[in-house]
């Protein structure tokens, strides 16, 4: 008889791992998890990228029976994980350049085909700079060739490794070192930026998903699913950066959750260019709840607050909610 799942806490969707069937349990709860990105690395406290990478790669390892090769773009993840002679990677791992992770991964995948290593799968990973900016040409090439690579972008919305400069993933109004909070329109300008999940979908690749470190089980599930199919796949993971965003280390998950709950970062999945699933917002919250926790938006909340531009950000969130049907 099928046992009904019992919810752990009233009013949440949190469920006790032990109550789930084996194949539904989180990879991180498995004593055989691979710790692919092992402890002892040098990420900052509360680093969303380290958390996201750990969950993503462990899930991919489990999904591939540990037959995985990872390619890394230059960036925080690369630097904090491999200051040799220490490496945190317990997976075959290569870092070549900032802008070529997708192409290097294509080469690794081609080599597996040439060698007849049918079961060995390839992941490329990078930050938003290495993905949406400098690595974009190689990424698009990998997509259009439908190379057998899962590319994961850990999006912390700026070049954090070089000291918090603007990328094409930096949101409007955000303060970075190159979009300082000065002048009449402080922070990053409105009307700019690049939506790479949508661009990935425009290539009509088999699978595109967004994920967040606030929804780690969902993140694992998406990675696991991605490893079950062939061809080019893309997962864009929202990873708060306490250092770059001016947020408290202990607020990383909270901020990531608020990004989802405001509608600023919609969680969805798409197959061959069509959105096929989205994560509904359970408790819609105003964007100010999200913005106020981050010093990069502090200039919006001076006396008087910049209602006009806060309103524009709220409009962005509302538009996402409408576009993806997040409240239905």
């Amino acid at each position, binding site marked *: 008889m099928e046992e009904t799942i019992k919810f752990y806490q009233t009013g949440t969707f949190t469920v006790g791992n032990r109550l789930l069937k084996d194949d539904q349990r989180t990879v991180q709860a498995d004593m055989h998890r691979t710790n692919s990105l092992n402890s002892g690395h040098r990420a900052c406290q509360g680093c969303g990228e380290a958390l996201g990478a750990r969950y993503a790669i462990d899930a991919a390892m489990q999904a591939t029976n540990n037959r995985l090769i990872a390619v890394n773009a230059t960036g925080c993840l690369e630097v904090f994980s*491999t200051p*040799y002679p220490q490496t945190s990677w317990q997976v075959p791992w290569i870092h070549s350049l900032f802008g070529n992770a997708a*192409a290097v991964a294509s*080469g690794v995948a*081609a*080599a597996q085909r*040439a*060698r007849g290593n049918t079961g*060995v799968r390839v992941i490329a990973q990078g930050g938003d700079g290495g993905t949406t900016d400098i690595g974009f040409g190689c990424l698009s090439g990998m997509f259009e060739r439908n190379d057998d690579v899962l590319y994961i972008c850990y999006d912390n919305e700026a070049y954090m490794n070089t000291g918090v400069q603007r990328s094409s993933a930096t949101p409007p109004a955000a303060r970075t070192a190159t979009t300082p909070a000065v002048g009449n329109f402080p922070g990053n300008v409105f009307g700019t930026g690049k939506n790479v999940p949508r661009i990935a979908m425009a290539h009509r690749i088999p699978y595109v998903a967004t994920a967040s470190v606030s929804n780690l089980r969902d993140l694992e599930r998406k990675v696991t699913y991605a490893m079950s199919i062939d061809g080019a796949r893309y997962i864009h993971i929202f990873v708060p950066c306490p250092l770059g965003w001016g947020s408290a280390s202990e607020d990383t998950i909270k901020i990531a959750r608020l990004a989802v709950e405001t509608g600023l970062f919609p969680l969805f999945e798409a197959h061959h260019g069509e959105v096929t699933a989205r994560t509904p917002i359970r408790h819609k919250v105003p964007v100010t709840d999200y913005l106020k926790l981050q010093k990069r938006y502090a200039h919006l909340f001076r006396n008087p607050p910049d209602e006009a531009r806060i309103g524009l950000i709220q409009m962005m969130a509302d538009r996402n909610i409408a576009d993806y049907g997040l409240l239905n």
Partner: protein
Amino acid sequence: MLKQTEGSRAVAEAIALCRPQVICAYPITPQTHIVEGLGEMVKGGELVNCEFINVESEFAAMSVAIGASAAGVRTYTATSSQGLLFMAEAVYNAAGLGLPIVMTIGNRAIGAPINIWNDHSDSMSMRDAGWIQLYAETNQEALDLHIQAFRLAEELSCPVMVCVDGFILTHAYERVDVPTQEQVDVFLPPYEPRQILDPADPVSIGALVGPEAFTEVRYLAHHKQLRALGLIPHLAAEFKKQFGRGSGGLIRSYRTEDAETIVVALGSLNGTVQEVVDEMRARGSLIGSVSICSFRPFPLAASREALMHAKRVVVLEKCLAVGLGGIVSDGVRKSLSGIVLNGYTVIAGLGGRAITRGSLTRLFEDAERDELEQVTFLDLNADVISYELERESKARRTGPTAEAILRRIGTVASGIG
């Protein structure tokens, strides 16, 4: 098997005989025919167990090659000119990671002004990238050098560029002897990587290395090239024994035994130089020439031995170190340290300008009389230069230079000399 074929086709057939497993291609003139040939062989089932990948840029071409090579397979690509510059970051990276990729350079000028014709500016721009650079004199040597290149690259775990003069060789139909698969298989064993991305034995490749070890890593890259100084002649000798013809090696001397004047050149230019040497020898000149095949590593000792008894050395260069003069000359002069002789740098054939026997004869006769400048530009049109300099001295808004020169000289045949 003897056949009359295009240089690019000869190179493609040589590559196929080397059993590459991943080939990445991005088109740029004059390299295109090589990768087209290989693409056809893969698609047609002639070249098996090989992945042919059409990439979106040269930067991606070298990056795919890096991934494939690090994953343990024999990897090849080809490019020219702007393409080599566009992949520059990955060119250095491949060498830094010690990946034995073989790449053909169909040598072509670098713009601006954009120019598709032959010179050596492209490969010379990467001379310090850590790649071995071999320059082919003929289509036969281009074919042979590629077979040697994989062996060399894989024995050293060091990438190799085989530089083949664009159009002059890549598009010329000549007779070549294409070896059999059995011959190549004996010379070139299957690739055994030193490092490999393997889930059964995970390693981290490309980690951050600080000041504590960086110098040592770089020294070992240099040391690898010094080892190549021994290995290149060794492989050339082995190749000759097995295939019955001489190709490659560090340098080759031509009629230098009692030469007072020795001309140094790279690549296909040596054919013309040797003809002029023959003509001048017939008239009683004591002249000879040296062809440098291995530019990286630079064969200092071999160069010194070949040139030390001359009275003068003329280095013919299809490239220009702007603001200095010669690039090849630097190495040649270093090889002659402490020896007193007259050294001349001649910049020739830039952007495909024909280097004719007539021009070379006049040049070498000037050299014999020691009437050359330290740095000479062969067949430089002095009228054009003085007119343009005067024009620029008289007005501020003179417009784009190259276009002004072309407007003045009008449509002319490229034949100079």
